[in-house]
């Protein structure tokens, strides 16, 4: 009867005493604490003059932090932003930082853009993984495309999958289209403060195709996972996947579009952009903001006025805060691949305009 209850300790346990647990915990914490610190000595970062993050490591925030450290250590001026800075439609040598280096005749600009990142995620990226660039000169790109609809702005109510969800604020301010459970948000909030977690994700992105180990073995059942860790990172020159169409937007057959611009007062992405600028200023960064150049040729006349009003408002806010900036005039139509991305010649022209801009020259002269 019930008195036959089996209260034995276990049936296949590994039982440690209190002191043994102290030893075990010390060992576990040592490995977890040291792995992300020691790893860079084993895995060389292939630094080229302008540091672009390999496309396949676009979600690898550990490598991004390493890039930040390397660029900051070399005293470069850091270009921070989304795929416009990263150079989605051009090879590394044609992106804005590379064009600035070419035109200025010195390797002083580093590409810290991340393909697909938006202001909400950029704030999280710099907050959690960009400590190394504090007190450095930063050119922050403002892409008004992220305010071109409620969906881009993340203020739509309907849930959809957006880029870099683990970087956005998990609890406050509330992002209406982000419907993760409380438990998942809590997990994300805790894990993104752990360097070990970022390192683990780095291994997944760099060597296991973004999968965790169990999922990877399902695709490679007979491969040794240790052999997959080659300690050779992907090339910064690898092309985006799928391969982008590098013809001008007009040649691609893209029609002019009417955008449902979000009011800046109500825009989440604008709020996150401002918070990013504030974060950098708080951290002692010298900040220059590049606004645009958006492809105004692609905007239908009825929404062009709304865009220009927002562009002016952004410029006014930057002026009011005393942040040096350039609200870029649109490039010639044929130098755009889509609504916001220049082609190689567009980057060259933009770099030239930047270098001609008095505020930028002043910013550059004061940079280390």
């Amino acid at each position, binding site marked *: *009867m*019930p*008195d*036959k*209850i*089996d*209260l*034995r*300790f*276990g*049936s*296949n*346990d*590994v*039982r*440690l*005493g*209190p002191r*043994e*647990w102290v*030893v*075990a915990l010390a*060992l*576990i914490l040592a*490995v*977890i604490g040291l*792995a992300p610190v020691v790893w860079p000595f084993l895995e060389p970062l292939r630094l080229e003059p302008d540091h672009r993050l390999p496309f396949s490591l676009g979600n690898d925030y550990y490598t991004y932090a390493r890039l930040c450290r390397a660029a900051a250590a070399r005293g470069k001026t850091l270009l921070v932003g989304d795929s416009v800075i990263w150079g989605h439609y051009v090879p590394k040598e044609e992106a804005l930082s590379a064009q600035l280096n070419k035109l200025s005749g010195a390797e002083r600009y580093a590409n810290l853009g991340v393909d697909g990142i938006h202001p909400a995620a950029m704030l999280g990226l710099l907050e959690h993984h960009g400590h190394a660039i504090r007190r450095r000169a930063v050119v922050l790109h403002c892409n008004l495309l992220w305010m071109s609809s409620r969906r881009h702005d993340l203020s739509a109510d309907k849930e959809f999958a957006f880029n870099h969800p683990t970087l956005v604020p998990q609890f406050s301010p509330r992002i209406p289209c982000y419907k993760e459970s*409380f*438990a*998942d948000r*809590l*997990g994300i909030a*805790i*894990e993104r403060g752990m360097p*070990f977690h970022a390192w*683990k994700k780095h*291994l997944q992105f760099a060597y296991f195709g973004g999968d*965790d*180990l*169990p*999922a990877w*073995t*399902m695709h490679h*059942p*007979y491969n040794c*996972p240790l052999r997959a860790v080659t300690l050779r990172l992907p090339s910064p020159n690898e092309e985006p996947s799928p391969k982008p169409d590098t013809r001008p937007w007009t040649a691609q057959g893209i029609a002019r579009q009417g955008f449902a611009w979000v009011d800046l007062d109500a825009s989440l992405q604008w709020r996150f952009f401002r918070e990013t600028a504030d974060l950098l200023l708080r951290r002692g960064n010298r900040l220059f903001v590049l606004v645009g150049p958006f492809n105004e040729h692609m905007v239908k006349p009825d929404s062009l006025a709304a865009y220009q009003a927002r562009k002016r408002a952004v410029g006014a806010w930057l002026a009011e805060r005393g942040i040096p900036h350039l609200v870029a005039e649109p490039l010639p139509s044929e130098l755009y691949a889509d609504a916001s991305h220049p082609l190689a010649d567009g980057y060259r022209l933009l770099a030239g305009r930047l270098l001609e801009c008095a505020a930028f020259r002043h910013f550059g002269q004061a940079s280390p």
Partner: protein
Amino acid sequence: MLFHTWVFAVFFLIVYPVHLATRGTRLKVPWLLLASYVFYGWWNPLYLLLIVTSTSADYLAVRCMARSRRKKPWVAFSVLVNLGMLGFFKYAGFVAQSLNDLFAALRVACAVPVPDILLPVGISFFVFQSMTYTIDYYRGLIEEEPSFIRYATYVSLFPQLVAGPIERSTNLLRQLRATPPITRHDIADGLSLFIVGLFKKRALADFLALYVDKVYAMPDRFDASALVLATVAFGWQIYFDFSGYTDMARGIGRMMGLRIMLNFNNPYLATGLGDFWRRWHISLSSWFRDYVYLPLGGNRRGEARTYVNMAITMLVSGLWHGANWTFVVWGGLHALGRVATRRLESTRFYTERVPTAAKRILVFAFVSFAWVFFRARCVGDAWLIVTRIFGSAWADPRFPLLAVGLLVAVWAYQWAYESRLRGALLGSAPVRIGLVVAMALYLAGCGGAGDKAFIYFQF
């Protein structure tokens, strides 16, 4: 709220210090009850209505039995409330669908509406646990519990609420009345149990689930080798999943000063089917033994009746697992197995001549075969899998070697654990520390993504 999530870690970090501070006071039990209701209500606060109903009915039944000469109506009331609730939430849809299938087969123009009812997590467990109290009181085995709060805590205690072990009031209520000291050895022991359970769940069960889910989702696309491996993998998956949950539950209980019963005892080392059921889901097996098999007469009414009682118990046990004919067939297969081998297992030939390894492999093979019906989505799928196992070609199954390595290591460990090697294996502190560190680092670095729920939550 799953044990292997951050939200549980935060929950426990709040609950545990308060438990340590209040355990010697009158607040100990109310605090545990509050924590348990928060834990259960986390899934859906409405579920709390069910657990409160079951708790209140059984508490009331015993109170009335204690004050009345006629006990039978009150125990019947308790059984009716609990089984009625279980029947409605778990079996109403199944019964209606089965009737419709029957009408269709008989070409009777009649359709029963099939209710779409969400199965509350853990209902099969807490209903059984609560009923033991009324039945044991009726049998004169226990005293009445005067405190409703304490009784409610016994029914809903969060470590073992949603997937057992199904505790007896004789064990758990007694511990809730006392205030046993919590030593640093209890905390160390609790952590030891928890880490093993976490490893079983996250590193092993969830890993094997990737292969099993893929194959069982489309069995017609896989040949014999993959189906056999997926079936064997499922046998290990469900064991690691469920015993992992139990280990974590026992570990948490231990840290809180509570001794929760053993639920698994290396079942795949069983040398007979009877032995298997003494090792697998011990709390449920013993529940069915004490509250179904023995009341039916057990083995006291002749051999034929014994077999009938065993078969009924196994079929009911199968149905307990889920409202699907697959579980009935699974229970039926085990009933057949037990009936066919009961006498054989007690012969001198079997006990002395047949090598232990051969017996273990035979039992494992039979249990694995029965798992086909347990895991398949429907009887048709199960039959398809069986026919393809015996009738299709054997090709490259693409089963991960890493999973094979982990399984072999765990099985070898279990063999060693039940052999003379145990002392050599676990007597050395560096070996034990090394094993724990290896498990923790594997979990931290290589554990899969996602928070996959425990299989037994669906029951």
